[in-house]
């Protein structure tokens, strides 16, 4: 019984959200407000049971890990914003968060987004094997594979040139920046095209639910 009610609720709410595509309407408004309120509570409950209890309450009061007094105090300071007179103390935990994650991200991104990516781009521009392939078996794919390595080097280099802020994009430099933009556009088009599929999958998932679980048509 509960299962059938569940499927009906799920199906009707799915339709409420879908109705948004036609125009803003009372069904969507109902679902939207329910969704915001319910999900806010979901994450609040979730955070209590999965973060606050196992990481603060239990270890601090159960096992006496006194170091946890620091985040407890920082957390309370954060809430002090509610009281205008002492609200300024909420800047301390904020400063701690922003500071520590700035430091952390500085290092992490420099490593994985800059150095590692540069390193991965260092491949010989002339891949003898693929050129041999091209001459023994000329075709579109053998040609594309032969030029792959230089394409990557040119793409990465000109792409980075596009991001130069302090130099005017004209002359030879501007030409490179323009090629960089082309690479960015190809990348955006490709990513978009590649994604379309995924988005359709999601809709298939929902329609499958409506047609199979709810209406039993398939």
């Amino acid at each position, binding site marked *: 019984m509960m299962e059938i009610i569940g499927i009906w609720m799920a199906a009707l709410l799915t339709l409420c959200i879908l109705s948004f595509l036609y125009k803003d309407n009372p069904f969507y408004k109902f679902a939207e407000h329910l969704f915001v309120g319910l999900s806010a509570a979901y994450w609040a409950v979730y955070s209590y049971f999965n973060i606050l209890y196992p990481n603060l309450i239990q270890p601090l009061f159960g096992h006496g890990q006194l170091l946890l007094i620091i985040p407890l105090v920082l957390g309370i300071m*954060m809430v002090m914003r509610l009281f205008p007179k002492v609200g300024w103390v909420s800047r301390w935990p904020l400063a701690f968060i*922003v500071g520590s994650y700035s430091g952390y991200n500085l290092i992490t991104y420099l490593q994985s987004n800059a150095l590692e990516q540069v390193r991965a781009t260092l491949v010989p521009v002339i891949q003898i094997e693929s050129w041999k392939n091209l001459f023994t078996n000329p075709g579109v794919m053998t040609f594309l594979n032969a030029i792959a390595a230089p394409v990557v080097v040119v793409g990465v280099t000109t792409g980075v040139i596009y991001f130069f*802020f302090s130099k005017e994009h004209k002359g030879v430099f501007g030409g490179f920046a323009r090629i960089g933009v082309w690479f960015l556009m190809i990348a955006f088009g490709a990513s978009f095209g590649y994604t379309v599929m995924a988005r359709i999958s999601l809709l298939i998932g929902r329609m499958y639910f409506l047609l199979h679980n709810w209406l039993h048509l398939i």
Partner: protein
Amino acid sequence: MLVAGINVEAFEVLSSSEPPVSPTEVLAKDKPNDAGGSIIVTWRKSDDDVEENELVKEYLVFRSSALDGEFELIGTANKGFEKFVDGTTIDGTQYYYMVKASDRVLHSPPATSEAVSSSAQWFHSGRISMLVATVMICFLILWFIRKAKKGKELYIRPIAGLEAVDDAVGRATEMGKPIMYIPGIADMDDIQTIASVIILGRVARKAAQYETSLLVPCCRSIVMSAAQETVKEAYISAGRSDAYDADKIRYLTDDQFGYAAGVDGMMLREKPGAIFYMGTFYAESLILAETGHSTGAIQIAGTAMPSQLPFFITACDYTLIGEELFAASAYLSKEPLLLGSLKGQDMGKAIIIAILVGGVILVSLGFTKIIAWLATG
């Protein structure tokens, strides 16, 4: 029956009546670049450890604190492997390791290592390239900030999306419509969100000057607090503290799609004249941007999420791509200190291009050592 922690009955067929040949060259050394407590044991495979048969099924690793003391089994490694990491050592204590090849019934005679102890290191030797890179790039940025401080005029190229910020605010004002600023769905631990809050400050100041109302729906409580603080400050510095309304900067829900549903609803009902999307976005990017587009608002987006950029590019009027998002606060403030850091970033990019081009030439000529030099640990 359990032999050395392994269920013997699980293996009905006994492969051989003779124990396998021992592994050789057992070496134990402190695991480098760690916080201590680990020793790496390596050996050379037993001659019986070959792919074709099952004479060796695994290696058993034993440990003792004295050569003539009792050796305790601490772990196993599959056949074909020549390494085991013991992560349970006490720093400063001497250990001996013994490795036996086994077919899970019979064990080879042991091969034993020299004494070794684990320790913690104060510097990660595999990260020298990172240290050099960090110091160099930070130095460059600081150098140009210093130069800018001394009053050197710096050229910064126009960035279309940022030039449009004024227009967008102006147009919303003319139409008598509010501005909506969406700071992304990540929390303050993400630099993009921090950058977004900084840009919000600049946009809020313009909104205050134009006396246009500014709506900021937030997905995280800390972001909401920071946004309130920033907008309030912007209104104060624009001399319009009376117009600041904390309720306009509101929290909706931490839920990704709950937030998207709520913001979509707000867009349709408040009908903003300009919408800004700045920060970290995931799949909700296009849900928001397409709904925003249907309301006819001017839309300016900026994100460093490569996967969401294509959607903003197609659905928004202007999009700040990756690094441009981080340049935005400097650009909008026009403060020389901040502009100096942009010049520093450019120098960093110049060095990267030099390494790229030089590196590719070297690698093409067969000098592949450079790849190892750039390893980041």
